[in-house]
């Protein structure tokens, strides 16, 4: 490419402006469009411990290394077998047989992304669990993923990680042939970006002064026809509500008849039949009777009972109950205060985001500016309250976290989890689940039975249909009749108790990595419970939700 002196000068002069994205942004372009820079930076600072370097474990890890986690440790003392070589893409085929599996897999996984740091530790997790130093090592990761871990070891690991609110979450994965399940153990998971398409309130029934002023002062009857046909539906509805209240003792339409009357009132504001902005206002009239000050799901968060900290738990803050997410709870409490605050709007903070609507550019930009200015004022008020109540949090929180929280205040989520294996102790719940979701529950029980048998005979020699059925009965009670679906799962596991199938591994690799990403980025809503997978029928289902 030949360039003249002049154009080079121009290029240099404008390089500060163009800011072509760096290679990292280019590499991650497609995923940044999903979870943005904040999600990416959470991924990049994560450290993940993976127990086992089986085909499934490496498939999961592949999908975490590609998008760019910070670090991973493969903890595995196993030696690669011929079967490993046949189903694990991250081994050097025949050459790896007889060599330490984790060490063989490491370079092939690291090769996927040179900005990810990784190591292979050829130790059995049992050894780590024996010493305090080892246990501390396990606790130091941001997430632990275990595949087909021995039942007793998994119980011990789950217990270790459950012992403190601030310990990392655990994803336990079990698979055999076409059947599998995974479970994420966490005390509490707070999501401020659930991406659930919830619609924030537009304040139609609680207009802020500038919006009300526009709606009241606009001369609907005398503006020119073009303007009339481009009045934003928000302004139309605010005006209609204002007029309705004046005629109805300051009440909103409640009964179906009143709602119809209200819609008729909006229709009557039309000058011409084809004014689509008024059609839109009528279609959006539900906002008038469905814009609660605080949605019930969010109100429920205000009264959420505090977590019961395990006896061993360390404290997380003097002014808040114990929680792995003190900052989120500080914001949540402030939000509650904000709603009741005399200086506030009496509802959740305004979101600056406007939906698409039929209007002209001028009106749209004007409306956008009104909402943006108002949202900024309410954010200032919120920040004042936060500084007042939680000065430390106010100082430490970054602007972006605060903005994200406020913007999504109508769809915040707090999930409470349960210890791995806890559900199975509640026999009545499991038996009930066996009736409601026979396939998923039956498969879960069969997999649990299988892991019990395999912990006795790792080669699978003791796994028979009868032995599996006996174990399942031990779990649910002897007189519980097993549904056909449970019998099918038992039969399938007896057929291939130790087979790790590449397609099951690939599928689980995607599913489990997806859950890991949700946990790490705190975006999107993770599965809470045992996600049971049956790939003969290509189905999934969730049982044991707390």
């Amino acid at each position: 490419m030949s360039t003249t002196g002049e154009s080079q000068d121009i290029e240099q002069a404008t390089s500060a402006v163009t800011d072509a994205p760096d290679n990292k942004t280019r590499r991650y372009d497609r995923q940044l469009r999903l979870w943005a820079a904040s999600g990416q930076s959470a991924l990049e600072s994560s450290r993940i411990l993976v127990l086992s370097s089986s085909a499934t474990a490496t498939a999961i890890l592949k999908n975490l290394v590609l998008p760019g986690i910070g670090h991973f440790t493969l903890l595995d003392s196993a030696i690669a077998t011929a079967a490993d070589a046949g189903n694990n893409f991250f081994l050097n085929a025949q050459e790896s047989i007889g060599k330490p599996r984790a060490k063989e897999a490491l370079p092939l996984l690291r090769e996927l992304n040179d900005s990810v740091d990784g190591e292979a530790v050829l130790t059995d997790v049992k050894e780590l669990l024996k010493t305090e130093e080892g246990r501390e090592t396990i606790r130091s990761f941001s997430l632990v993923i275990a595949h087909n871990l021995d039942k007793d070891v998994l119980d011990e690991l789950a217990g270790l990680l459950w012992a403190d609110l601030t310990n990392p979450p655990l994803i336990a994965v079990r698979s055999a042939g076409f059947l599998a399940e995974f479970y994420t153990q966490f005390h509490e998971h707070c999501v401020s970006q659930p991406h659930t398409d919830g619609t924030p309130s537009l304040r139609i029934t609680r207009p802020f002064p500038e919006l009300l002023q526009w709606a009241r002062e606009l001369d609907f009857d005398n503006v020119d026809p073009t303007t009339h046909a481009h009045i934003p539906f928000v302004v139309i509805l605010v005006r209609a509500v204002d007029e309705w209240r004046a005629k109805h003792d300051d009440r909103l339409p409640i009964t179906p008849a009143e709602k119809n009357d209200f819609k008729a009132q909006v229709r009557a504001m039309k000058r011409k039949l084809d004014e689509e902005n008024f059609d839109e206002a009528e279609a959006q009239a539900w906002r008038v009777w469905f814009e609660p000050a605080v949605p019930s799901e969010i109100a429920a968060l205000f009264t959420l009972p505090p977590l019961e900290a395990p006896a061993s738990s360390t404290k997380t803050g003097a002014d808040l109950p114990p929680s792995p997410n003190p900052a989120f709870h500080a914001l949540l409490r402030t939000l509650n205060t904000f709603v009741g605050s005399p200086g506030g709007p009496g509802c959740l903070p305004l979101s600056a985001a406007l939906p698409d609507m039929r209007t002209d550019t001028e009106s749209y930009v004007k409306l956008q500016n009104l909402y943006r200015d108002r949202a900024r004022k309410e954010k200032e008020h919120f920040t004042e309250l936060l500084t007042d109540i939680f000065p430390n949090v106010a100082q430490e929180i970054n602007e972006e976290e605060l903005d994200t929280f406020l913007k999504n205040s109508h769809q915040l989520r707090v999930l409470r989890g349960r210890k791995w294996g806890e559900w199975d102790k509640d026999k009545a719940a499991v038996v009930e689940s066996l009736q409601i979701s026979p396939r998923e529950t039956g498969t879960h029980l069969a997999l649990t039975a299988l892991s019990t048998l395999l912990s006795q005979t790792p080669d699978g020699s003791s796994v028979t249909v009868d032995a599996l059925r006996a174990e399942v009965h031990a779990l649910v009670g002897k007189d519980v009749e097993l549904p056909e679906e449970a019998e099918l799962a038992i039969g399938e596991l007896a057929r291939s108790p130790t087979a790790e199938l590449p397609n099951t591994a690939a599928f689980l690799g995607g599913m489990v990595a997806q859950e890991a990403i949700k946990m790490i980025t705190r975006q999107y809503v993770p599965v809470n419970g045992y996600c049971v997978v049956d790939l003969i029928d290509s189905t999934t289902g969730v049982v044991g939700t707390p």
Partner: protein
Amino acid sequence: MSGFDAARNGRSAHAKAVLGPELYARLADTKVLLVGAGGIGCELLKNIVLTGFGHITLLDLDTIDLSNLNRQFLFRKKDVKQSKAMVAAKTASAFNPNVKITPIHGNIKEPHFDIAWFKQFDIVMNALDNLDARRHVNKMCMAANVPLVESGTAGYLGQVQPILKDRTECFDCVPKPTPKTFPVCTIRSTPSQPIHCIVWAKSYLLPQLFGEDEDTGGELDEAEKQGENAQEIAALRKEQTAFKAVRAALRSSESQGQGPSAAKMVFDKVFQSDILNLLSMEDMWCTRAPPTPLDFDAIVNHSFVLQKRADAGSPNGVHTNGQTSNGASAADASNATQENGANGASSSMAGASSSSAAKLKDQKSLSLKDSLELFVSSTERLAARVRAGEDTISFDKDDDDTLDFVTAAANLRSAAYGIPGKSRWEVKEMAGNIIPAIATTNAIIAGLIVLQALHLLRKSYNALRNVHVQFRPNLPLSTIRTSLPNPNCGVCRDAYTEIQCDPFRVTLSEVVEGILGSGEGDEDGTGSREVSVYEGQRVLSDPDWDDNNERTLESLNVTRGKFLTIVDEDGEWGTIQVGVGVLPLNHPVDGPALILPAPLPKPPRKPKPSTPTSAPVEPPTSVKRPAPDDDDDIVPLAKRPRTNDDIVSLAKRSRTNGDLDKSDLVTPSKKRKLDEDGLLLLETADETLEDVEVIEIE
């Protein structure tokens, strides 16, 4: 047993235990066609190699880009710009020495990938990202009667569909949404949304300056016929002619070293003269806000002020760009526009556009001066490439020069029209039709594809499922049984057959009569009957119009890989699709020019339908003009005299073939047929069809 055999046995132990020895043994001899080596393709290739498929043909036309590496795990940084198929095959082959992978760097729509070629495969798996290719493979699989597993992903969502002719719905049994289009005048003179300005920069301005030197007057002719504003069209024609001068300036070496003269010329033309030209038509701006011509020098020295909208009447500085000095980046206004759902930002970007603190470099908004500087620099970069010998430059989202150009030009145009601007990041997504893509979804989908493929190969058709990966934490997969084909599907309900021929020697009537056969017995076709014959959208003959019957297929541009569609005139027989293949290699030179299939196809007999639906449903290949609602005027019933509208469209075509009797172009019987089928006469603007007398239908 040798050591190697032992190892081989060991490595397949798991697969055998689960698949059963019989199916597992068959996999080694199974021939798979994998179309696409991208996000899904890489995952799928790994899975089918591991599952034990013995023969894999991998086809992809693309080369590796840096932005692929976050999910297409068979590629490394050093492979960027290499063929995806070649690199993927090489990486995956190393894993299993028992697998034979044949990579093809090519387009699946190339003519030599004909029915005979598809028939060599036991199963086809689609890992494609575009509708056109997916539909093509679907049709070829219907024609060759090869099972297909179809798939796609978008962000966290994805789906897998097993397809088998006559057993399940095909890809086209459920209509697919067509891409959104905009009226010409919206793009060229009255944009109201950022996407209009982006489309203008990408599909109009960039090709005008750096694309092929072609007369785009045709588009305006079309627009005029569609009834768009004649005055606007006239102004746009004037605009057109002035492009010749700036094109020349950009290519002239003399413009080098004289400051940004060529880029400034372009700027002055498109953002000043053209806008002044449009403004001169006052009628246009009675009901809409007029644009503001931009002044290059004033923007550079910070003295430019966009005119305040006459009717804006905003209390608090609505048009921040316009009312403040334009040199400083209008950060406040752009924060607002980032969240502007009204202007085409897809919901998938909600996450990406939400953050203010952690904004990526190219997510920041551009001030008017920023846009101008970016316009000058990108125009100069593109001009330098053209001067260095690059013939034409078209938009590519991964080509920074074109992306910068489109970003800058779209933002300048938006400023002139008072439309909110878009960052480079957003323009890339909107102009490049970018769909977010991550490793996890592709892994999930690829696993599901193989499972459906195994069901198809095992012929356990009851186990086939359409699977959707959805966005529900309580139910990650939605699984539904496959449905029977849509009886009205214009793709999979046709009867497919194949001929081998020399298109230079065989005539249309030889093929059609040959395929229809004598009608005696079960194996000799339906016998002669009244039919119309199409290739794609083109009508080649019908009962009352036989001009093409004695012409060779080659002269009608019906060559290898194409289909002749034989539609029964009375709608009593199903439609026959005749795939055109070549003669076998060992065919004697003086042998017959046509080898017919045996037995001849016998499509199902239908009761005379009230609304036949047998016409091809290919998407239109050129700009088309739907007839007015009152279609009696344009598609008269049999024997009615032709109307003026018909004469206009026919006269235009007849210029390309002077000796043609116009009345033969549209025969009354064809009109009747078209009318019955709900088909309408349309314009054709497709240059390649000029030597053939055709009417486009829809």
